[in-house]
């Protein structure tokens, strides 16, 4: 016989719901506790690891990069704040802030020469020269990390990839695809000619000269009419540092 709904039935249903909710809450709490415990364990393990390998992290750029990678995987950013236990533990925040300041200095100092675009490798080299007093090595990875922190300042620091190389931009120049392709082409010799741009990229001469003129105006290129073949060359200080250009032309 089918029971008709009555007050008792409703009460039973409500009680059951309460029971389920209670149980659910319990399970959730258990899970959270477990999670918290795991996190605490993990954190202490990570701290222990960091403490144990403190010197390696500070001195060895490869190790440092791997440590960063590990932290990123578990969602910890040791650079997120200058306070907190990471900074206290490693002094690693200061390290990157210092790098950041030095990178800004180098970019400003070389801006009139390269128009505010500098090869990451050259930047690293100049950075090492600048820091020669302390023995801690600086890797390109460190540079990139320090630059990514500079972005927060909104000063227009950015890393762009041109071909295989990375360039660091410190002025808000907009480079379009054409400009990038020219820069990429220039990486081989440090310079390009209009003919090369037309030939290699299959562009019309108008397109080539337009793009080259813009790069000139932006201070990213310099003309060279001195070669004996009489063809104008467009040099790009940002892809070939002055110091390494000697070999490029002989």
């Amino acid at each position, binding site marked *: 016989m089918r029971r008709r709904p009555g007050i008792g039935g409703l009460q039973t249903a409500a009680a059951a719901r309460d029971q389920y909710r209670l149980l659910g809450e319990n399970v959730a709490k258990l899970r959270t506790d477990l999670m918290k415990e795991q996190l605490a364990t993990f954190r202490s393990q990570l701290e222990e690891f960091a403490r144990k390998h403190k010197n390696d992290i500070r001195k060895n750029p490869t190790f440092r990069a791997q440590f960063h990678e590990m932290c990123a995987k578990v969602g910890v950013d040791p650079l997120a704040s200058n306070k907190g236990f990471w900074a206290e533990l490693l002094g690693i925040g200061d390290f990157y802030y210092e790098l950041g300041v030095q990178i800004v200095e180098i970019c400003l100092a070389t801006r*009139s*020469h390269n*128009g505010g675009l500098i090869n990451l490798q050259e930047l690293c080299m100049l950075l090492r020269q600048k820091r020669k007093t302390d023995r801690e090595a600086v890797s390109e990875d460190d540079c990139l990390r320090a630059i990514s922190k500079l972005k927060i300042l909104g000063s227009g620091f950015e890393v762009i990839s041109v071909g295989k190389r990375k360039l660091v931009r410190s002025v808000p120049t907009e480079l379009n695809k054409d400009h990038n392709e020219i820069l990429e082409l220039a990486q081989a010799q440090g*310079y390009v000619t209009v003919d090369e741009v037309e030939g290699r990229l299959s562009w019309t001469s108008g397109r080539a000269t337009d793009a080259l003129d813009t790069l*000139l*105006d932006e*201070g990213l290129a*310099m*003309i*060279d*009419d*001195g*070669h*004996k073949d009489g063809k104008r*060359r467009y*040099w790009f*200080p940002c892809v070939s540092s*002055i*110091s390494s*250009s*000697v070999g490029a*032309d*002989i």
Partner: protein
Amino acid sequence: MQKLGDFKLPQFFNYPPYFTLQPVRDTREKQVQLWKDLILDYCKTQHIFVIELEEEFPLFSNPVIERSLSHEARKAFLSALVTEGRAEWLDKGHRKCLILWHRIQDWADIILRFVKDNGLEDGVMTIEEIRSGIESRGTELHGIDRTILMRALKLLEHKGKLAIFKGTSTDDEGVKFSV
């Protein structure tokens, strides 16, 4: 690093575009500044007083990268020095340029120091003695360009520190100091 004798050349000297006058203003200003510094620095260390535009000059070409400055570029860099008071054209055609790595005022100060160091406060010297005498040996005055020396002496004469007197020929022009 490339060298000219014992002179250390700056890195831009090996970068070909620096030998072509740049059309974009900012880039050109930087280029001119680098060349001005280089010319003054080189002339000072090598004790060079006059640059002739048409003549060979070690800074005007770099055989390593096969580049040399055009006449126009040479003139532009030297003119920039002239505008700054660090050089003067010696002729109307702008072919010869006097390089003042010390300004005339600075040369005058050097002469005064030289006079005091040698106890010549009320002594007499000929121009040639100042330029090549034993007293000036080892000082910056040794071998000084005659035009520059005369200008500095006239400045001092104007200030009443000395009197220039003429002999029978230019060879025995002299000065009487009264410092």
